[in-house]
């Protein structure tokens, strides 16, 4: 297996006719349902266009499986442009693959080498049980938001949007945190399957904004409580989550979450 992916980036405008198709060996995790045993199944593809996206490569494989009367590989996807957070996949041991700040659906096959072997596994964590094959249930994230990841603002009750100026840099920091797409790569890449990066991004976004102050303490206590209930691990500050995050969410948010939580414990209402 090659590990020199990053040097393999094709920076030049490669003329179309020179593009060589790739032969690949895939080891794909197949699991019928949450309760069944899973295993790797090996597939060989010998005509992968370098212009395909990773998911299109799986589409092609699936079409072939259907033609053979076999069940295609189930995987989550929707927008296919790196914003909905639906796609997952752990590719050669790395959630969303080896590229930085990239989702699985944004990977293109020209970044792989002819003859390469690729392992494809689901995002793994107890809190993300496998639904089927590569599809996992990330409902835990929704439940964490339901516990407190909001600002209570009834339609009709809002003051004029410019009534409360928010300094440009504060708004930017809030936006940095809000950029999280909820894909769960932080959990999948964390050795402890911790959800701290996700929760911290949410807490930070709302705690930074003046609108979020009224519920500040209650929010962080409730969200952390729910996070713990869901069975995620504890953070050991190794920052693998930040490195895997397709939106580059910083672990500085985790420090802020810790601060918010301890502050709420100490002096929250």
């Amino acid at each position, binding site marked *: 297996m090659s590990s020199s992916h990053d040097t393999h980036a094709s920076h030049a405008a490669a003329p179309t006719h020179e593009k060589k198709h790739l032969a690949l060996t895939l*080891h794909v*995790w197949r699991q019928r349902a949450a309760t069944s045993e899973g295993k*790797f199944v090996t597939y060989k593809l010998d005509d992968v266009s370098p212009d395909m996206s990773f998911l299109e490569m799986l589409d092609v494989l699936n079409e072939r499986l259907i033609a053979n009367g076999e069940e295609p590989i189930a995987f989550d996807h929707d927008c296919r442009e790196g914003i909905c957070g639906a796609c997952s996949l*752990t590719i*050669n*041991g*790395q959630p969303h693959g080896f590229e930085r700040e990239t989702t699985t659906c944004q990977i293109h096959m020209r970044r792989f080498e002819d003859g390469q072997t690729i*392992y494809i*596994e689901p995002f*793994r*964590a*107890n*809190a993300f049980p*496998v639904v089927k094959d590569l599809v996992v249930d990330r409902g835990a994230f929704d439940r964490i938001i339901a516990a407190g990841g909001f600002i209570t603002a009834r339609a009709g009750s809002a003051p004029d949007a410019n009534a409360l100026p928010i300094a440009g840099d504060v708004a930017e920091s809030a936006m940095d945190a809000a950029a999280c797409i909820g894909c769960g790569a932080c959990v999948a*890449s964390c*050795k*402890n*399957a*911790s959800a*701290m990066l996700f929760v911290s991004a949410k807490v930070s976004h709302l705690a930074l904004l003046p609108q979020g102050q009224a519920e500040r303490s209650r929010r962080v*206590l409730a969200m*952390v*409580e729910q*996070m*713990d209930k869901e*069975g*995620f*691990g*504890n*953070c*050991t*500050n*190794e*920052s*693998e989550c*930040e*490195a*895997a995050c397709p939106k580059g969410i910083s*672990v*500085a948010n*985790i*420090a*802020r*979450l*810790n*601060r*918010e*939580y*301890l*502050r709420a*414990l100490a002096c929250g209402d």
Partner: protein
Amino acid sequence: MVRRIASLWSSSIGKKALMSVTGLLLIGFLVLHLVGNLQLFADDGGKSFDAYAAKLKSFGPLLYVAEFGLGALFLAHLALGLRVTFENRAARAQRYALERDRGARSFASATMVVTGVIVLIFLVIHLLDFRLREMAPDGLAAMVVRRLSEPAGALIYVVGVAALGVHLSHAFRSAFQTLGLSGKGWDTPLARLGKAIAIVLGVGFAMFPLVFFSGAKKASHQASLEPARPIHAASDVTTEAIR
């Protein structure tokens, strides 16, 4: 309020915060401990070190309270460390077949529980060596030097404090992050300070076994010429060797 305090023990962030505080206090103790130990290097045949030990003893019950506090900190840290580790293992029952990190984690961060347990074992030995044993007639300093001059003793102490150094190289920075005291340009200074503390404590404590052991070797070399030399004098040889 009770619930809030309970959260410190039960919630993920609470647990980690307790670990950080206990860990940082232990680091504080270690710094004092190291400074105190430096007196072993004084060129007075262990007199000032023994005087220092006697001074501590004279606090009487107060010393017991301090020791008890220290023990509690340690036990709490240890219990939480083990608990956190087990929980984290359990959070991913089905492991990855292939797992490749992105280079953000370090050797130290990946081995916290290992280095922690080594420190624990070391500490037990350490206490058995000097705290829970009857005081030698020639004083504590003599006991220490004797122990650290043995090959086994030196090895145990070097390994123990090296593990401590590795543990702390991640721990210090991590503790600040856990307590929410990082971010905004503080990360790099804290990480550097953490490394520095790890090196100072690790190398600092390692000096004792290294110096005494190499000194003892020299001494034993000399001893083969002059077999009747009392062990106590070994420290003299050592200090000479340092100069």
